[in-house]
């Protein structure tokens, strides 16, 4: 504790979810005072998101089985507050590597700059999205959106709700929604229950998590909620808002009337800042995504930049807490801390133990991917008129035309030619589908189609803030 640091490092943690909080805690325990920047107003990340002040539901009501973990994380963070420089409600919209590096921030519509010597990126994840007919209709939301509405605002999607897609969040959301009084009319799983059995050995490594999934399914069945597996080709229909959803299963088409749809196909890491920080990326087959390279402890390819949590590969909240601690220990080690030999040996031992636990967690993840495979192949065969890019309303046919007529073979070229991925969301919603369409149309793998590059600002900022940034550089 209270080690003397030769030069005072400017350590910035981005994200105050499970990874960011545990990273901050580890640094504070070592006597450092990191800056913690978070886009949310309150700590907890998406999974342990806290409602605005004045909301009264208990942690048990908000987080169910995870209440104790949420409580532990929130109270750890509250205890850290005096020792950290906490900047909630602050967007990091640019990162410029260097010595020191610099972050561009936006808070309350105003621009600010923050130099850094070390960065721990805990940027989290969002739903992996697959476009399908009708996906832009009002009433169609991501699984995460439906969950945030309930957790942070005490609301559910109104009317008859269908929950469709894949991944563990599917049944969890259905359970939370039915419990909260939502009218869930069907849960459609794009995976087959048989796939889950094949994945059993890997899933049993984390039997508690697996048991929860089975519990939710059993509970939903007991409530009479139809759970349908092996669903393909979902399509929403409606005049102004969604009015029905149809799908195929074993060649047969079924349609159900509904007023809302929550959909998602697992999670996708938010990697934009790692890219701007100069990190090397590799295509990750398990996540079907380009991810910043990291070693067992969370060191990126850039000295001084560390990665933790779901922002550099999906591993879940428990793993995020561990990887947040591991990354902070690695950072301390790189600073020559702790200086005391016995403490140093203990920290190294802990690092090794954390790495081992995280590796075994990865095997569970492989199991989950077998159980809930991503329906990326949908995009390959989608109709030409399907809108792939929500921002700029670019249909699949335009992407395919660019391949056929302009010989486009690389994703950034495709972006330049068609504007796909160039809109306000910077490809967060359309990137995976666009890469899949390009890869299929050119006959290469998604990895070979290349990585969609991001540009600052990573999210829209007011023109006044951009001008202020310009003036200061």
């Amino acid at each position, binding site marked *: 504790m209270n080690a003397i640091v030769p030069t005072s490092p400017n350590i910035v943690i981005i994200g105050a979810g499970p990874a960011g909080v545990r990273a901050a805690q580890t640094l504070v325990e070592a006597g450092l005072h990191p800056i913690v920047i978070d886009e949310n107003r309150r700590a907890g990340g998406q999974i342990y998101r806290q409602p605005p002040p004045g909301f009264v539901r208990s942690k048990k009501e908000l987080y169910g089985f995870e209440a104790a973990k949420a409580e532990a994380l929130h109270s750890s963070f509250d205890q850290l507050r005096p020792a950290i420089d906490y900047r909630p409600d602050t967007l990091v919209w640019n990162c410029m590597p260097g010595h020191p590096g610099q972050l561009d921030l936006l808070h309350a519509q105003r621009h600010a700059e923050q130099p850094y010597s070390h960065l721990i990126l805990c940027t989290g994840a969002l*739903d992996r999205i697959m476009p399908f007919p009708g996906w*832009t209709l009002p009433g169609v939301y991501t699984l995460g959106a439906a969950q945030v*509405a309930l957790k942070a605002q005490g609301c559910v999607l109104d009317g008859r709700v269908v929950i469709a897609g894949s991944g563990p969040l599917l049944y969890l959301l259905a359970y939370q929604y039915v419990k909260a009084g939502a009218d869930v009319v069907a849960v459609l799983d794009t995976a087959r229950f048989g796939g889950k059995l094949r994945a059993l050995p890997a899933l049993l490594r984390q039997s508690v998590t697996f048991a929860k999934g089975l519990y939710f399914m059993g509970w939903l069945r007991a409530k009479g909620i139809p759970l349908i597996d092996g669903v393909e080709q979902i399509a929403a229909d409606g005049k102004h808002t969604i009015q029905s959803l149809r799908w195929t299963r074993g060649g047969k088409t079924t349609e159900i009337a509904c007023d809302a749809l929550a959909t998602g196909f697992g999670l996708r890491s938010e990697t934009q800042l790692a890219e701007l920080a100069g990190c090397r990326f590799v295509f990750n087959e398990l996540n079907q995504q380009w991810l910043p390279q990291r070693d067992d402890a969370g060191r990126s390819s850039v000295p001084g930049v560390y990665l933790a949590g779901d922002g550099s590969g999906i591993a879940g909240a428990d793993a995020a807490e561990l990887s947040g601690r591991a990354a902070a220990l690695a950072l301390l080690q790189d600073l020559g801390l702790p200086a005391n030999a016995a403490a140093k040996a203990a920290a190294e031992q802990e690092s090794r133990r954390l790495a081992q636990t995280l590796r075994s967690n990865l095997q569970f993840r492989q199991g989950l991917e077998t159980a809930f495979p991503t329906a990326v192949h949908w995009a390959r065969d989608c109709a030409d008129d399907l809108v792939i890019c929500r921002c700029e*309303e670019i249909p699949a046919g335009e992407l395919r035309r660019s391949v056929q007529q302009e010989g486009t073979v690389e994703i950034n070229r495709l972006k330049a030619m068609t504007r796909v991925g160039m809109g306000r*969301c910077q490809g967060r919603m359309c990137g995976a589908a666009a890469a899949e369409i390009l890869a299929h149309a050119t006959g290469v793998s998604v990895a070979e189609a290349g990585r969609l590059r991001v540009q600052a600002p990573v999210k829209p900022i007011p023109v006044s803030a951009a001008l202020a940034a310009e003036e200061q550089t």
Partner: protein
Amino acid sequence: MSLLRRVAEQERKSVSFWLDGKPLSARAGDSVLTAVLTQADQLRRTEFSGTPRAGFCLIGCCQDCWMRSEDGVAVRACTTEIAEGMRLLSGMVPAVAGDTA
């Protein structure tokens, strides 16, 4: 028609705001998105096809919930808290003469 329904946290202070020129009320702590979609079914129209949108991710990523206020300020509905007297436009009715909403 509404897209969201309140099922908890109902005992909060009321906040008055305007949507498309109509006075409405929300609850303190509501996001703009919650305030609007508990009593309406769209937030905006797209610049290209003019079709209605009502947000998608609710965590500040998809950028599909940007509304306009009457004085032309852009508001990201999912991450902005509703405030007393806000005057919001959903694209449901023409904002100015000549608009094709």
